[in-house]
């Protein structure tokens, strides 16, 4: 059983209007680990107290050797390695920016190069889970601080003065009237010993130039605006062939027979190859099918159109998502496997004056990044070289090596820019296809997925039915909460299907439910997967926030309260929710983060909600057909609230204004945090109003933006305002890429309810006439 551990706040007013937050006692949270931060050598490094993160336990952990990440030319150009993949979050800018600032490098003299997939060298490169800044801000400061320290030591020796008298500032070392540019010092500085953390005199926050300022342009801005930025399909090699693949329409299906005569007759088509298939759980293995190789993409597409293939559908040929949804809803109404039991739920419901229950569903979604999957592979006698837009280049390297029977040392993965990722490009099936086909034809091969391929062969966001019941006593207080989550699990992509979600998924808003309710039961009902389930930006937080956020607004309506009052009442007094204290298996319920460093802090939930509500002017009167909806959710150890002003215009759901308030700890690059919130508003609205992947006879029904449309400029959240709760560096930076998405759909649905009285429980939803 879990219980809530009340933490004492040192200061009051967690809901201050100016968004400043009363500091929680860091010492109280960290307990024994406080020594980690303070230690015996605190005097010089105290501007940068360190804290443990899940980064240390990621595969290959963290590397903070400046000699791996920094090189400096004689002309003073500082080259920094970006080891995380850039898919639009800004990590290729923000992490090097932190290094440059702590180094005192002039950003205009910094060049960024992208790391190959090499985790033993660079540390973990798996760019997902909203981890880039959360796990790497400390290593980036350490690397930058080390180089500045080494510059100072080298300059001191050069001048024969004590290092303590040398100041390193704006790309040069200074002493008295003398200065030496980084370029002049580079060779000697980089030969200096790399200092220990405790020996480095870090900058104070007041001395930051770029960190926390939001004053740098993104690294690739000029190239992007001039068409020079290099994405997956933009690399060419001499003799390169172009391929597309006809894949089995049903997951786990295979080719029964095929006739390529007509395909081979298409001008430009050179050869046709059958690829081995896979039956889940097959991790990221390709689906198999028939590859058409040609002299250009168009010929390959036409050749594929001309293929005659008879498929064998396999065990998932009967998947019908409408029938499946009805089954999940029925399952959700029955008891599931109990995951969190707190208090006496049965008694609370038995003695309730009122019981309110509703089920909220969500369809599958496909990521549909603007750049569909694409990869270039060149397999030769020496090994395999790959250029691809991948979120996890080292996983691609080892998977490709395995697929080709090669030593990973013989495989090189060059990471291009990603034209969007959202989780799809964590899975390297499209790269393995390119490697196989290149090996078969003995030439470099670019495999291009068409948009239809992308929509029909994704690793889909799960589909779900979430049933929530509340027991309300005679005084109108919620005394019991029961939440049964039913959804096929991501685990089924990796292991035989047991029908149940695993701890990473159940940690996303189910077992860590933050409300101050004495009796809680969180359950998981069985659902078997019939397609490839993968992670999609914010993962299970989307259906959880959708269900919980909608249900709170329904409770408010039932109990005659306004939504904000209902939320605040449920969130309760500031305290820490601590599933780990009750033995929940490990840190994975907490996104892999130690709860000591990253607690579930309900005060932060309340603060962001108040900030969003204040921002939009919650409570003001609106004309008929307009309403304001609220939702707040913690995910990726960040807290985001959404306040959506919904207005029905000509029978269309519009959002003239939206406020997103985020607490992501220390805000390393507020400008990119703003862009992520603006993007989350759009993706959340797309999920709310459009995203639905359905299946008939095991086949995905949708195919392109014709029937899988997204929010466009004619109806997007017009004015998104981001509120960032300010914190000092010691309030640990948390996730940004994903946590904006979950509260958006329920906020829009709740706003729609207040605008029209229509309550939506199925996502995506439309306006009834």
């Amino acid at each position, binding site marked *: 059983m879990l219980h809530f551990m009340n933490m004492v706040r040192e200061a009051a007013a967690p809901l201050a209007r100016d968004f400043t937050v009363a500091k929680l006692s860091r010492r109280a949270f960290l307990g024994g680990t406080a020594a980690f931060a303070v230690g015996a050598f605190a005097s010089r490094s105290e501007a940068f107290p360190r804290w443990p993160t899940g980064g240390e336990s990621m595969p290959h952990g963290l590397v903070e050797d400046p000699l791996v990440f920094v090189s400096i030319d004689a002309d003073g150009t500082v080259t920094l390695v970006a080891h995380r993949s850039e898919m639009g979050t800004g990590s290729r800018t923000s992490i090097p920016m932190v290094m440059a600032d702590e180094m005192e490098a002039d950003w205009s003299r910094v060049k960024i190069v992208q790391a190959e997939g090499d985790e033993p060298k660079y540390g973990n490169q798996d760019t997902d889970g909203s981890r880039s800044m959360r796990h790497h801000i400390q290593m980036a400061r350490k690397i930058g601080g080390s180089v500045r320290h080494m510059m100072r030591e080298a300059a001191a020796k050069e001048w024969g003065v004590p290092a303590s008298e040398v100041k390193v500032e704006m790309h040069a070392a200074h002493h008295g009237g003398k200065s030496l540019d980084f370029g002049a010092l580079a060779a000697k500085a980089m030969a200096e010993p790399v200092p220990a953390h405790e020996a480095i005199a870090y900058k104070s926050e007041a001395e930051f130039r770029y960190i926390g300022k939001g004053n740098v342009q993104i690294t*690739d801005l000029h190239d992007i605006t001039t068409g020079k930025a290099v994405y997956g399909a933009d690399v060419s090699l001499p003799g390169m062939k172009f391929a597309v693949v006809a894949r089995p329409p049903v997951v786990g299906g295979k080719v029964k027979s095929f006739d390529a005569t007509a395909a081979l007759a298409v001008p430009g088509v050179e050869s046709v190859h059958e690829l081995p298939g896979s039956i889940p759980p097959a991790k990221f293995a390709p689906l198999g099918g028939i590859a058409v190789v040609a002299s250009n993409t168009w010929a390959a597409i036409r050749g594929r159109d001309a293929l005659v293939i008879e498929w064998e559908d396999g065990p998932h040929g009967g998947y019908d998502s409408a029938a499946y949804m009805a089954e999940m809803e029925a399952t959700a109404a029955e008891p599931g496997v109990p995951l969190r039991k707190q208090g006496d739920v049965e008694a609370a419901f038995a003695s309730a004056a009122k019981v309110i229950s509703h089920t909220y569903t969500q369809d599958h979604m496909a990521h549909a990044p603007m750049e569909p999957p694409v990869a270039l592979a060149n397999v030769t006698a020496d090994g395999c070289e790959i250029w691809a837009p991948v979120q996890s280049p080292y996983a691609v390297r080892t998977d490709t090596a395995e697929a080709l029977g090669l030593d990973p040392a013989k495989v090189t993965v060059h990471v291009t820019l990603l034209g969007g990722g959202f989780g799809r490009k964590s899975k390297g099936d499209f790269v393995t296809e390119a490697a196989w086909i290149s090996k078969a034809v003995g030439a470099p091969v670019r495999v291009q997925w068409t948009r239809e391929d992308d929509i029909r062969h994704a690793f889909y966001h799960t589909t779900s039915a979430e049933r929530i019941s509340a027991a309300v006593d005679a005084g109108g207080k919620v005394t019991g909460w029961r939440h049964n989550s039913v959804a096929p699990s991501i685990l089924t992509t990796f292991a035989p299907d047991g029908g149940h979600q695993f701890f990473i998924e159940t940690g996303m808003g189910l077992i860590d439910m933050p409300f101050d309710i004495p009796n809680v039961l969180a359950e998981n009902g069985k659902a078997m997967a019939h397609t490839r389930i993968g992670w999609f930006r914010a993962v299970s937080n989307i259906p959880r926030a959708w269900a919980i956020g909608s249900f709170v607004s329904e409770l408010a309506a039932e109990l005659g309260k306004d939504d904000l009052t209902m939320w605040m009442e449920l969130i309760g007094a500031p305290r820490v929710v601590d599933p780990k204290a009750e033995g929940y298996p490990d840190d994975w319920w907490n996104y892999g983060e130690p709860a000591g460093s990253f607690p579930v802090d309900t005060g932060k939930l309340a603060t962001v909600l108040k900030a969003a509500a204040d921002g939009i002017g919650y409570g003001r009167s609106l004309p008929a057909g307009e309403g304001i909806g609220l939702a707040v959710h913690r995910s990726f150890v960040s807290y985001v609230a959404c306040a959506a002003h919904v207005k029905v215009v000509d029978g269309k759901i519009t959002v003239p204004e939206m406020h997103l308030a985020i607490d992501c700890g220390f805000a390393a690059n507020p400008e990119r945090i703003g862009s992520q919130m603006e993007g989350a508003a759009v993706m959340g609205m797309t999920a709310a109003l459009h995203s639905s992947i359905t299946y008939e006879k095991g086949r995905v029904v949708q195919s392109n933006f*014709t029937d899988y449309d997204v929010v466009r*400029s004619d109806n997007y959240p017009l004015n998104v305002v981001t509120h960032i709760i300010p914190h000092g560096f010691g309030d640990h930076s948390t996730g940004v890429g994903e946590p904006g998405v979950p509260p958006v759909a329920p906020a829009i649905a709740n706003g729609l309810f207040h605008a029209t009285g229509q309550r939506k429980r199925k996502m995506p939803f439309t306006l009834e006439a």
Partner: protein
Amino acid sequence: MATLKINGAPREVDASPDMPLLWALRDVAGLVGTKYGCGVGLCGACTVHVNGKAERSCMLTVGDVAEAEITTIEGLHPTGDHRVQAAWRELNVPQCGFCQAGQIMTASALLAENPKPSDEEILEAMAGNVCRCGCYQRITAAVRLASTGS
């Protein structure tokens, strides 16, 4: 073999007349700033100018544009400093950036035809260009900035 006028110069392109302009630009002419996003004219990632008008290059064939002046993102401005490109940089518009060449080509064609569009005209003109990252707010602001200077 066809001769196309691309970015102000005639260019021999080894492509059949029925090949979509998109693939002729990308795979044959090596102008990869123009992107493939959907192939059916619904996302705008492949937008180029044909005789000054924004067109989806996936929906035109090489034969369709034999006599036309074609401008791609690479040829929009000799130094990449078209006022739309400058506005995009001023507002740090892109996230992943993949759709932005198409967005910029649509926006620059709009402003060539209608130098002072209303907000409604901007939103309508840009509605054919999808940005899955969701940069619309900044795109609209950048078109306005390029148009009015503020």
